[in-house]
C-alpha cells in the first residue's frame, strides 16, 4: 500500500482520539491489521486459551534508522518478541503493539512500517490482537512496543539455568550482521552487509519436531554472544569454553569489525540464537539447522565446562576470558 499523499505528516491531532485518530485507524491500521479478534473493535481482545504453561514477553524498539538493509523497525518489533517467546520453547500465538509517534512523522513511513509488521507476523504465524497509538512532540520519530504470548507444549523445559557439564553450545549462524548494518547506515558506509532480522520460531519448532532437546535458548541481541553466554554461565553456575575458529562470522562483517575496533562476540543480532543441547545431540541439531535457510551457517561453537564465566580457546591455542560487555560497544579512536 502506498499512502495516497506521501507528504502528509503526523500531527498532535492524530493522537487526540478525534477524527484524525479515527482517520489514522481507518486508513492505515485497519486495512493492514485485520483479523477475527481485531475486527470486533472491542476495548480489549478476548482470547480463549488451551490449558498449560504460557510464555509472555514484552519489548520496546527504538532503532535508528527506521529502515535498514534487511529490515525495519516494524519487522524488528515483531521478530524481537516472537524470538523471545521461541527461546522459551513457546509457540508464539498472540501479540499486542503500542506505537509512540512523534509529530512530523510521514504517514507514508508509518504505513510502510505497519505493512512490514503484518508481513513479519504472517511469516511467524502470530496474530495481532490489540494496539494503541500515542502522539508526542518531536521530530518525526517512531517507537514501538510489542507484547506477545505463546503456549509452551508440555514436555518442553528450556531455561537459562539448565546447562550441564558437557553440553554442546551452538549458534544458528553468522554473528554481527545486524549490528554492522545499523552502524553502516549511521556512518554512511556503503557495503553489502545486511541485517539478519527474522522470526526464528520455525527453526525452533524444527528442532523439537526432530526429537531434539534444547535445554537453553537465547536470541543473541544486544551485548552479543559474549554477554549472553556470561548470563547463561552465571544462571547455571558452570563455565563455557568457546573455540574461536568455530565461531561463524562473515568475511565482510569481520573486516568491518576490525576497522572499527569492534568484536563480533559483542555485536548484536536480530535473527540468531545460541542454544545448548546434550553433547550427543549436537551434531544432529547442527545438520538440521543447516538445512534450514535461517540456520545455514550454524556451528557448534563450544561446550559447557567446569568453572565459571566464559573462556575462549584462540586460533593460536591461547586461552582468554570473554567478559560480559560493559557499557556500549563504542567505536574507538584509533
Amino acid at each position: 500500500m502506498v499512502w495516497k499523499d506521501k507528504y502528509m505528516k503526523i500531527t498532535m491531532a492524530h493522537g487526540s482520539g478525534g477524527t484524525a485518530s479515527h482517520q489514522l485507524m481507518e486508513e492505515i491500521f485497519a486495512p493492514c491489521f485485520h483479523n477475527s479478534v481485531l475486527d470486533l473493535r472491542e476495548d480489549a481482545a478476548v482470547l480463549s486459551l488451551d490449558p498449560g504453561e504460557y510464555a509472555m514477553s514484552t519489548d520496546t524498539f527504538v532503532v535508528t534508522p527506521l529502515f535498514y538493509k534487511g529490515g525495519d523497525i516494524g519487522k524488528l518489533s515483531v521478530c524481537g518478541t516472537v524470538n523471545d517467546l521461541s527461546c522459551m520453547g513457546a509457540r508464539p500465538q498472540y501479540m499486542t503493539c503500542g506505537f509512540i509517534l512523534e509529530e512530523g512523522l510521514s504517514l507514508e513511513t508509518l504505513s510502510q512500517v505497519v505493512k512490514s509488521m503484518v508481513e513479519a507476523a504472517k511469516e511467524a504465524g502470530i496474530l495481532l490482537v490489540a494496539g494503541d497509538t500515542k502522539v508526542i512532540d518531536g521530530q518525526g520519530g517512531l517507537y514501538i512496543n510489542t507484547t506477545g504470548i505463546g503456549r509452551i507444549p508440555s514436555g518442553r523445559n528450556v531455561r537459562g539455568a539448565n546447562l550441564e557439564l558437557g553440553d554442546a553450545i551452538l549458534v544458528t549462524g553468522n554473528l554481527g550482521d545486524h549490528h554492522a548494518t545499523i552502524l553502516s547506515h549511521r556512518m554512511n558506509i556503503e557495503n553489502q552487509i545486511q541485517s539478519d532480522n527474522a522470526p526464528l520460531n520455525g527453526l525452533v519448532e524444527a528442532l523439537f519436531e526432530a526429537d531434539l532437546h534444547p535445554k537453553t535458548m537465547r536470541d543473541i541481541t544486544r551485548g552479543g554472544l559474549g554477554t549472553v553466554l556470561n548470563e547463561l554461565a552465571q544462571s547455571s553456575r558452570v563455565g563455557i569454553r568457546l573455540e574461536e575458529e568455530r565461531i561463524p562470522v562473515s568475511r565482510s562483517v569481520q573486516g568491518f569489525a576490525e576497522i572499527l575496533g569492534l568484536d563480533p562476540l559483542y555485536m548484536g543480532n536480530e535473527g540468531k540464537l545460541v542454544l545448548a543441547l546434550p553433547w550427543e545431540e549436537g551434531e544432529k541439531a547442527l545438520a538440521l539447522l543447516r538445512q534450514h535457510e535461517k540456520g545455514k551457517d550454524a556451528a557448534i561453537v563450544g561446550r559447557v565446562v567446569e568453572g565459571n564465566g566464559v573462556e575462549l580457546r584462540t586460533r593460536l591455542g591461547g586461552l582468554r576470558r570473554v567478559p560480559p560487555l560493559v557499557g556500549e560497544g563504542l567505536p574507538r579512536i584509533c
Partner: protein
Amino acid sequence: MKNQEEILKQLKNYDGPPLKIMEVCGTHTAALFRNGIHSLLSPKIQLISGPGCPVCVTPTQYIDRLVEISLTPHHQVWTFGDMMKVPGEEESLSQAMGRGAQVHMMYSPFQVLEAALANPDITYVLAAVGFETTTPLYAQILKEAREKGLKNIRLLTSLKQILPAMEWILSHRNTIDGFLCPGHVSTIIGWKAYQPLAETYKKPMVVAGFTGTHLLKAIHRILEHGGEGKVFNDYPGVVSEEGNLLAKQLMEEVFQPEEAVWRGLGAIVDSGWYLKGPFAVYDMGSYDLRKDKKLPPGCLCREVIIGDNTPAECPMFGTECSPNHPYGPCMVSEEGACGIWYGRISI
C-alpha cells in the same frame, strides 16, 4: 625463519632471565588479549601496556575543559565514543550530557565541516585526541575549514607523539627489555624513526602487525635479539622506512611540537602537537591545559604505564575503580591496561 610451532614452543619454555616487553600501543594490548597471547608465554616473559592508548594518557583537566565548553551556550563538543566516559575532576562528558551539555559523538571528524557550514551560530569544538595516526586528519580538516572560510570550528588538542614518551620511559626506568612498536603510528612516522632510540638504549624494537601470528613473531624477535639496539620491521608492506611523507608534511604544516602533559607521566618536552601559525586561531585554549600538572590522588596510572606495577597492584583496582565506575582512564578504554586486565581476571 622458524615456523609458528617452534616459536610457540620456545616462548612457552623460555627459562632465561626475566623479560619485560612493552607493547606501546593500545591496539596491540587489545590484540594480545584477544589472541590469548599471555597464556602462551613462559611466566618469565612479562608484557607491559605502555602509554599508547590515547584515552589513557589524556589528563583530567582536558576532560574538565571539554565539559566546561560543552555547557557553554552556542558551543558543541564533538568527540569519538571512547572519550565519553573518561572521568574528569567532577564528571565525564557523558554525565554532563545528563544536565544539558552539548556533546556529539562523531564517527568521522570530517562531518564537522558540513555541520559548521549549516549552523554558523554554533561553535564546533573537536576533542582532538590521539597520536600520529589521527593528527593528520585534524590537519586536513583545518586546511579545508580555512579554504572554506569557516570561522566556527575549534580544536581542543591533546595530540601526542609516541617517541618522546618512549624516550621518557627509557630514561626514567630502564627496565624494559624490548618494545613492540605501534603498527598504525609506524605507518605514518616510518620504522627508521625508532632507530636513534634503539641505538642509544640498546633495545630491540619491533614494528609489528596485529594478528596473533604477527605478535608471536615480534615477541620471539625480542627474545632472540635481547640487548641489541636494532629496529626490526615485521610489518613490511604496510610500514615503510620513511613512513607517510604526505601525512607528515600535513602535520608539520598545521602543528608544531611543544611540551604536553601525559596522565601518569607528567609533562614531557616536545611530546605534544599544537596548532601553529595561521592555524593557531582555531585553537580553543589547548596551551592553558599544561599549567595544572598534578596527578589524581591514589591512582597508580603512572606505575602501570611504565611497567612498575600491574593494574591489579593498584589499591583502587576492582574497588573504587572498575569498568562501570572508572576512576583512572586506563580503566575506561577498552584498550586501557586496567580495563583489559579487569576483563581477564574478573568473574
